């Protein structure tokens, strides 16, 4: 059972035997943890382990079914966000939660506007926002509309907002999932500064490297239950994985060199609408896994979207298997043999209200149709069952509504949808974002397997570990420009960061 830490006198917050039942899911079962003054406590666990749910309970967004919260030795109840704020608890949610129609200052102070009789004191919010933005290293005016910011910048606004609360307990739920190394570093600096000021931080991440770097202590959750704690001294990658998954994950990055084949994809002088100043050139071969690295907003997603026909290129040609193709829509891209697993799974990848089967067949259903657009239901069922067993997708059956699956399994369905089309080129945009270690490992193995069977894989990732782990070659982008290309031998954290920060380098002939 749970090994709740003994109540220490230094404890700022104690969570005791919290349980939370969602319709159908026991999200939290008797979970306990302790948070001391001025410490960084990492909470880790696989997708669906209950991390976010626990944090939402602390922040007053959700109420627990049972259990107690103790702050400064006193049992308290937190049932609204306001009450949580009163106790000095602030949460940066896993998903972005900003009003895009309001400016940065309005978002930072949303819900806590300095006011007299309900009239907002605008100048005060502007002045304070400016200070906060400087602190997180965001060089923008407080009057800028949030809708105009990149995802990374928006995430930094969220962090500024959390800072503005002057919280005693600051909870960050996967804050770096949309940040690149550069921004992440800025965030880490802020965290250390806060810690020095005595603020306690709960930090959630699937990037175990970060955890290793930051955490004073680690609490591990598995299937909604405590799976153990680690103190500073015993934190190690393997130990964390072992506790999270309940087994050893061997050969985490399964890179194997493969014989590469002919050129499948050639991109010539492409200019994307978001970054029309730069022309992009590169090529991709059969059996090859190529990573694209870069800082947030470097234009990687934009490039993928142009390749896949979501956005129209300003100019340039795309050549697949030696033939120039005209790509004006995803349909054209698919016809040319391309497939894209998009960056935002929920928004772009899945029809959340539909079943696994229907999601799985969404791309192939028109190819497999009987006459006159009638769906071939037998074929659809077969396909789905094949994919479920081949990719070890955890689902009760293929009629399950996909939103009830865990993130990793959802991602596998999106992958399966495209594998059903047997594409020549597989484009993956942040394929493991928000995916837990276990599922990550399976996705890596799958990528390697597909590559060895002849597929060409181009994948964007902000996780340097995985870029280094499985790519045969890496392309690096900076502000819409392809700044360089590194072979397996040349790639290292330093060499990638150099290019990612804009130091151009001659492409290496392979």
């Amino acid at each position, binding site marked *: 059972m749970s090994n709740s830490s003994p109540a220490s006198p230094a404890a700022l917050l104690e969570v005791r035997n919290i349980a939370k039942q*969602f*319709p*159908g*899911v*026991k999200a939290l079962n008797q979970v306990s943890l302790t948070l001391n003054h001025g410490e960084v406590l990492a909470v880790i666990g696989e997708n669906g382990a209950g991390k976010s749910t626990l944090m939402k309970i602390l922040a007053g967004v959700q109420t627990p079914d049972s259990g107690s919260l103790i702050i400064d030795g006193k049992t308290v109840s937190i049932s609204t966000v306001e009450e949580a704020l009163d106790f000095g608890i602030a949460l940066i949610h896993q998903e972005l939660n900003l009003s895009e129609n309001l400016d940065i200052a309005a978002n930072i102070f949303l819900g806590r506007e300095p006011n007299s009789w309900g009239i907002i004191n605008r100048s005060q919010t502007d002045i304070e926002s400016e200070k906060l933005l400087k602190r997180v290293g965001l060089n923008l005016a407080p009057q800028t509309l949030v809708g105009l910011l990149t995802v990374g910048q928006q995430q930094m606004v969220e962090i500024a907002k959390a800072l503005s609360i002057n919280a005693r307990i600051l909870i960050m739920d996967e804050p770096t999932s949309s940040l690149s190394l550069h921004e992440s570093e800025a965030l880490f600096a802020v965290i250390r500064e806060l810690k020095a000021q005595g603020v306690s931080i709960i930090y959630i991440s699937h990037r175990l490297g970060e955890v290793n770097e930051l955490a004073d202590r680690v609490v591990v959750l598995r299937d909604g239950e405590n799976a153990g704690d680690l103190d500073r001294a015993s934190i190690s990658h393997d130990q964390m994985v072992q506790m999270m998954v309940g087994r050893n994950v061997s050969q985490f990055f399964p890179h194997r060199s493969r014989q590469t084949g002919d050129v499948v994809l050639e991109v010539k002088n492409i200019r994307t609408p978001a970054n029309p100043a730069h022309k992009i050139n590169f090529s991709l071969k059969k059996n090859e896994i190529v990573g694209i690295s870069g800082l947030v907003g470097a234009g990687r997603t934009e490039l993928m979207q142009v390749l*896949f026909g*979501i956005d129209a290129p300003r100019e340039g040609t795309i050549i697949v298997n030696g033939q120039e193709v005209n790509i004006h*829509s*995803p*349909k054209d*891209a*698919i016809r040319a043999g391309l497939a*894209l697993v*998009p960056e935002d799974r929920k*928004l*772009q*990848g*899945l*029809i*959340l*209200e*539909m079943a696994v089967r*229907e999601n799985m067949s*969404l*791309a192939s*259903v*028109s190819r497999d*149709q009987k006459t*006159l*657009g*009638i*769906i071939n239901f037998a074929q659809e069922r077969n396909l789905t069952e094949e994919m479920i067993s081949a990719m070890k997708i*955890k689902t*009760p059956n293929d009629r*399950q509504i996909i939103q*009830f699956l865990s993130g990793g399994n959802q991602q596998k369905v999106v992958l399966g*949808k495209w594998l059903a089309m047997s594409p020549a080129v597989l484009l993956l945009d942040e394929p493991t974002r928000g995916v837990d270690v276990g599922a990550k490992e399976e996705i890596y193995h799958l990528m390697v397997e597909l590559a060895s069977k002849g597929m060409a894989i181009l994948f964007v990732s902000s996780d340097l570990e995985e870029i280094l782990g499985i790519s045969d070659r890496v392309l690096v982008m900076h502000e819409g420009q392809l700044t360089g290309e590194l072979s397996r031998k040349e790639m290292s954290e330093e060499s990638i960061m150099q290019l990612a920060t804009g130091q151009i380098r001659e492409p290496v002939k392979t």
Partner: protein
Amino acid sequence: MKKVLGILILLIVVCIITAISNENFFSAYNMQNVIRLTSLFGIISIGVAFVIISGGIDLSIGSVICLVGSLLPFVLVEKGFSITSALLLVSTVSIAIGLFHGLLITKLKLQPFVVTLCGLLIYRGIARGITQDETQGFGTAYAGLRYLAIGKIDLPFIEGFKLPVPFLIMLGLALIAAFFLNKTIFGRYLKAIGNNEVAARYSGIKTDRVVIMAYVICSFLAGVGGVLFALDINSVQPEGIGNFYELYAIAAAVLGGCSIRGGEGSILGVIIGAALMRVLRNSITMLGIPSQLEFAIIGVVILIGVITDELVKNYAQKRRALQQAKQTSG
């Protein structure tokens, strides 16, 4: 099926209550009338269901009914068109309207609400302009054509009761619609788009085409409705006919389980929804309730319907999730 159950029960309850207090309710004559009107409203509701499932809305169908319903007798009687060319003309007009809506909504990214609100104003205006507000009708001619709306067919076994022809038309259209919605790629795409248009586009679906198609179907069925309404009443007042019918059709679709958020809906449910609306109005007369209160009662019943539906849905979801949890953990 489960979703349809609630509304079906409501329909049956209303029928029984009415029948108890007035035996004439189940008379062949009254049933024929109720069925005929249910069929007409059912047809336009099916159309609007397609648009609602796609995640849109169509406020213009009452005006499309008006335009088509006025044009048909106008070109037949006043302009001497042949029946074929008249029908061809009104079909073209209604399809063109749907196309127009679809293009504005997909290509120019205008809001469906706004586009079809303008449509609501425009098409009736055009009809009134063309006809100079004169009531249009077929007089005593065109009996053959009018059979489509007022004809009745003897049933072999049931004494006295004859099946109104519009019911057969509605049945045919409903079967086709249900087939399209559930068995074809188009239907699958439509639901996918209604739930998440972006994800549908990222899956290679030409979402614009599908959405346009939904609006075309909707306007076309409104046109069919317009033709049948005109043939049925034989007297089309351009400034009056079809007013608020869009709202009745939407209400029928919503009662029948279509979510205004898109992605969900069943044709059977929509038909039952339309039937409920018609039976209610009939019942109010049959029960001797003053006609002033008619709409108040209909409104209250719809509201009760959606509230119970919401409550039941919540409950069902909780139960389903519980079962699922057992399955996954087991």
